[in-house]
């Protein structure tokens, strides 16, 4: 029955949460449902939603990633400098940033998987170090007005659909296919579920753990490119707190911090829930202080509901798994 709630119809919970929140906001502000505001929402959710793909995959693999926020800051800086100051063509620069992202993720992955330093630690260190490096460029000053072509990457539309929305749909499609229809994807669930059993089943445990971080790095890189495009600039201050929003999205989406459980599509719903709440609060000009409180409550509530739904099904495996957070 856990299976039911996890695999066959696992999408219900978080989707319901999202709809409830949206309904609430729609009632308080008619403007919420304006086409304008909806595409505005799409723009706002896109970056965190994409970063959250990585966070989810790392969480499912049994790890945690605190680094994407800082990694994004670093990458927007490098990206902006490449394009504006070092005369690297936009296309090439994008490719290089994606590579950089994979490298940054790889560092955490290597330390966690091969040197067996807990991911919480390696990525905590990266959280500090990557932002430090970001500040070392252009001695800490943001790089503005990078290139107008760049902006189009974010603000452009296709058949009237905002590009970021398209990116999100495509990337989630790919992530879903990867996790569901490929061996490495399955391995990520296996390693997150039971490292020992995975090793004894011949799975490349370390390689799989590393892979999860490489993907997270790539996702962060895409997020960085979009961030630069959105603000047409790079800055060592970008992405502060992004890691926590991304993790929150995954967890609101029902991913288990014990690893092995989580449905990527729900992460998208989780991200939307967060953004809808923020948007609703902004539309009503609620002061940021109150916003923080509300966000906090929402996170707990969403997870609480999911836990509660889970209880029945989880009982056993909790017991045998012997792991309970």
């Amino acid at each position: 029955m856990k299976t039911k709630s996890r695999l066959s119809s696992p999408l219900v919970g978080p989707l319901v949460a999202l709809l409830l929140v949206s309904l609430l906001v729609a009632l308080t502000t008619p403007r919420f449902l304006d086409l304008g505001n909806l595409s505005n929402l799409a723009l706002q959710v896109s970056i965190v939603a994409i970063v959250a793909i990585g966070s989810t995959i790392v969480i499912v693999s049994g790890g945690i990633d605190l680094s994407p926020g800082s990694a994004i800051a670093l990458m927007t800086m490098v990206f902006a400098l490449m394009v504006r100051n070092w005369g690297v063509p936009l296309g090439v620069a994008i490719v290089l940033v994606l590579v950089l992202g994979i490298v940054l993720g790889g560092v955490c992955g290597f330390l966690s998987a091969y040197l067996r330093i807990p991911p919480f630690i390696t990525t905590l260190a990266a959280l500090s170090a990557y932002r430090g490096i970001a500040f070392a460029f252009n001695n800490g000053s943001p790089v503005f007005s990078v290139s107008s072509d760049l902006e189009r990457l974010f603000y452009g539309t296709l058949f009237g659909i905002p590009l970021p929305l398209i990116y999100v749909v495509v990337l989630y499609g790919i992530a879903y296919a990867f996790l569901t229809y490929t061996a490495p994807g399955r391995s990520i669930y296996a390693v997150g579920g039971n490292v020992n059993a995975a090793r004894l089943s011949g799975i490349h445990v370390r390689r799989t753990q590393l892979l999860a971080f490489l993907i997270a790095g790539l996702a962060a890189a895409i997020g960085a490119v979009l961030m630069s495009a959105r603000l047409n600039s790079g800055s060592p201050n970008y992405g502060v707190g992004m890691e926590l929003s991304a993790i929150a999205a995954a967890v609101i989406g029902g991913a288990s911090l014990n690893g092995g459980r989580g449905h990527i599509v729900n992460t998208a719903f989780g991200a939307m829930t967060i953004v809808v709440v923020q948007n609703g609060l902004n539309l009503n000009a609620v002061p940021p202080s109150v916003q923080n409180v509300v966000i906090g409550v929402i996170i707990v509530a969403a997870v609480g509901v999911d836990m509660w739904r889970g209880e029945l099904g989880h009982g056993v495996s909790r017991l045998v798994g012997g792991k309970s957070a």
Partner: protein
Amino acid sequence: MNTSPPLWEVVDVTKAYAGVKVNDGICLQLHAGQIHALLGENGSGKSTLIKTLSGAHQPDSGRLLRHGEPVVLSSPSAAREFGVSTVFQEFSVVGALSVAENIYLGRPPTKGGKLDWAAMRESARRVLESMAVELDVDAEVASLPVAQQQLVEIAKALAADASLIILDEPTTALSVEEIDVLHRLLKRLKAERRAILYISHRLDEVVELVDVATILKDGQVVSSAAQSKIDIPYIVKCMVGDVGEHYPKERNARTEVLLEARSISTDNRVRDVSFTLHRGEVLGLGGVLGSGRTEIARAIFGLDRLKAGQIVLRGEPLRLRHPRDAIAAGIALVPENRKSDGLFFNFTGFPNISIANLRRLGRYGTLHPAREREQCRELLRELELSPHAEHRTVGLLSGGNQQKVVIGRWLHADADVFILDEPTQGIDIGAKIAVYRLINRLTAAGKGVILISSDYDELVAMSDRVCTIRHGRLVAQRTPAELREAGQRGVWGESEAGAAPVHSIELSIV
């Protein structure tokens, strides 16, 4: 029979999980000075009843009487107040803590409000002595092998000095020697007029130990203490109906050598071990706890690197750097610790089966769910696996079905050499026989089986040859017949010295 009023009485207890009644109107009486067996297939509700008696959870309905007085066991500590102590099937030890601390977990001795470490370690030592167990009370439990952890779990229950002692499968990981010690201990406690409730799937030990037995089926009592005869055929009949031969051994050994270990040694206790495994043969490994059987399995499966020697498969020398290499060569390991090393509790049955051979599910690392379903359904039929395995996470399957899933994994991976480490540990007689038939199917198909078992009868009955392992050395190889002559007691121990020279059997087989 015992006429004095019962110490404890379970009256009409019912407990359901997610709507499924796993205890359904259960009644039984526990008398002081009596060893009471609670028997039943996997999933028949034994542990659930135990948890009720230990205050681990509350029954949906029904009552518990102590000396005829109704009592409520609101929590494990409440149960302890009433003099109940339990050896849990899922151990209740904390790996990160020392042996001593585990034995007094939850009720450490204090002096003037201050924890009295000296006293704790001293009394812990005494308890272990009484069990004739040699263990460093300061050792971290996580650093001990499963069997010793189980001994700690038992010591923990005995240290509580309770009037009712419940043991839920206390011997799964133990071998003859430890079991004997435990039984002598239990008999002494019985003489001290304590009540003992004993659960085990090892019917041979049960019949020799207990006075009365209550048998469950699907959560209901099918044979009360009064009715139950204490003999294996009766018990089996009540549990699973007619099963015929308990050890349906088929001899399929061929002459062709499948696997050969040439004086292999590892840093993990294996010393200069040599043996050959023929196609269709079951090679048993016998020995006391920690004799190094599991370690030999680890070496052959590529978990421990070889320090010396060579493993030869189908005439080809193997280089094993990682379990992967062994799997690729067609070697399979069914680990002794199913829960921590075997199963993925986040998966349903099918992904658990296919995980070791995802290549079969599609080309270029892709997976075709349809293909997975079809392949696994076929295995499901072949293994007589519960149909629930398709949709339920394995945590909800019975022990027997869980074991079948792990074995099924290696059938799916189409392995050639099966290392079965304690394959029937904690599974019911019906499931055991199913596993034996599976072994026969394997050997009939010309596969080789290395069987590690602490269940002496099983080992002797199902093996074509039995190697005696002692301190990581292979000290003797004999046929089951020869072993039976040697008799059971201390068969693996130092006691009986000169065993038949290794080569003689080689000839006898060929």
